[in-house]
C-alpha cells in the first residue's frame, strides 16, 4: 500500500472509524454551538447533542448486529 494511501487510511480510521454519521453529527453539533455562542452561552447544547448522537449510533449498531451476533473485536480495534 502506498504511503499516501496508508496515511489517508490512518486519518480516516482515526477520525471517522466505522460510523461516519456519528462523526458528522458531532461536528454539526460543534458548528451549531459555535453559531449560537454570539447571542447566547449554549454550554448545555454540545453535551446533550453528543449524547443524542451516541445514543443513535449505539442503537443503530445494536440493530445491525441483531441478537447473539457478538464477534471478536477486529485487529487494532479500540
Amino acid at each position, binding site marked *: *500500500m502506498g504511503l499516501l494511501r*496508508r496515511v489517508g487510511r*490512518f486519518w480516516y480510521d*482515526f*477520525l*471517522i*472509524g*466505522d*460510523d461516519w454519521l*456519528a*462523526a458528522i453529527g*458531532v*461536528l454539526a453539533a*460543534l458548528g451549531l*454551538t*459555535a453559531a449560537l*455562542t*454570539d447571542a447566547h*452561552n*449554549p*454550554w448545555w447544547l*454540545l*453535551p446533550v447533542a*453528543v*449524547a443524542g*448522537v*451516541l*445514543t443513535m*449510533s*449505539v442503537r443503530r*449498531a*445494536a440493530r445491525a*448486529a441483531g*441478537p*447473539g*451476533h*457478538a*464477534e*471478536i*473485536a*477486529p*485487529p*487494532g*480495534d*479500540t
Partner: protein
Amino acid sequence: MTPEVLLVLGAFLASSVEMVEALTIVLAVGVTRGWRPAMIGVGAACATLAVLVAALGPALTQIPLSALRVFVGAVLLVFGLQWLRKAILRAGGVRALHDEDAIYAREVALSGEKETAATGMDWYGFTLSFKGVLLEGLEVVLIVVSFGSTGGHLGLAAAGAAAALLVVGGVGALVHRPLSRVPENSMKFVVGIMLTSFGVFWGGEGVGVSWPGSDLALLGVIGFFALVALVLVTDLRRRAALTSRVTSGA
C-alpha cells in the same frame, strides 16, 4: 505572603490544572494502547513545545488558542465517541469483549495491513498523547508568560510551573502501575468517557462556550457521559435479555 510567593503559587496551581488534564490523556493512552506510543507522543510534544518557545518566546501569546482548542477538541470528540460507542456495545453484549490473543493471531495473519504491523508504531496512541500534551503544554507556556511578564518575574513563574511538572509527573509515575492492573475492557470504558468529555469541554471552549464553574465543569461533563453510557449499557442488556426470553419461549 509576599507577591513573589503568590506568583509562584499561582503559576504552580494554574499549571497543575493543565498538567493534570494532559496526564489524564497520557495515562489513558498508556494503559489502553501501550506506554511506548504514549511516551513517544509526550516526548515529541515536549520537543515541539521547546522549539516553539525557543523560536517565538513571548510572541507565543499571539497563537490563536481558541482555534487550536476547536481542532484538538473536535478530533478528541470524534475519536472519543468511537471509543465510547465500542465500549458500550461491548459492555452491553452486542460486541464481544476485547480478546487480545485472538486479535494478535488475526493481526499476524493480516500483517502488512495495519500501521502497527508495518512500522512497529501505534500512531493512534502517539497522536492522542501528542495532541493532549501539546495543547496543555501550550497553555502552561501561556500561563508562565502571562504570570511572569505582568510582574517581570518570568523565572519565578517558570519555577512554579516546573514544580507543578515535578508533582504531577510524580503522581503519574506512582499511579500508572496500579492503573495497568485494571481490566482492559473496564479501562477502555472509562477512557471512552474521558476522551469524549475532554473533547466536549475543549471543543466547547474553543467555539466560545463559557462553562459554568470554569475548569470544574469538566467533572460535570465526565459525570454526565458516565451516566449516559451506563444507561445505554443497561438498555442494551435489558433488550438482549428480553430477546433471549422471547427466543427461548418460542
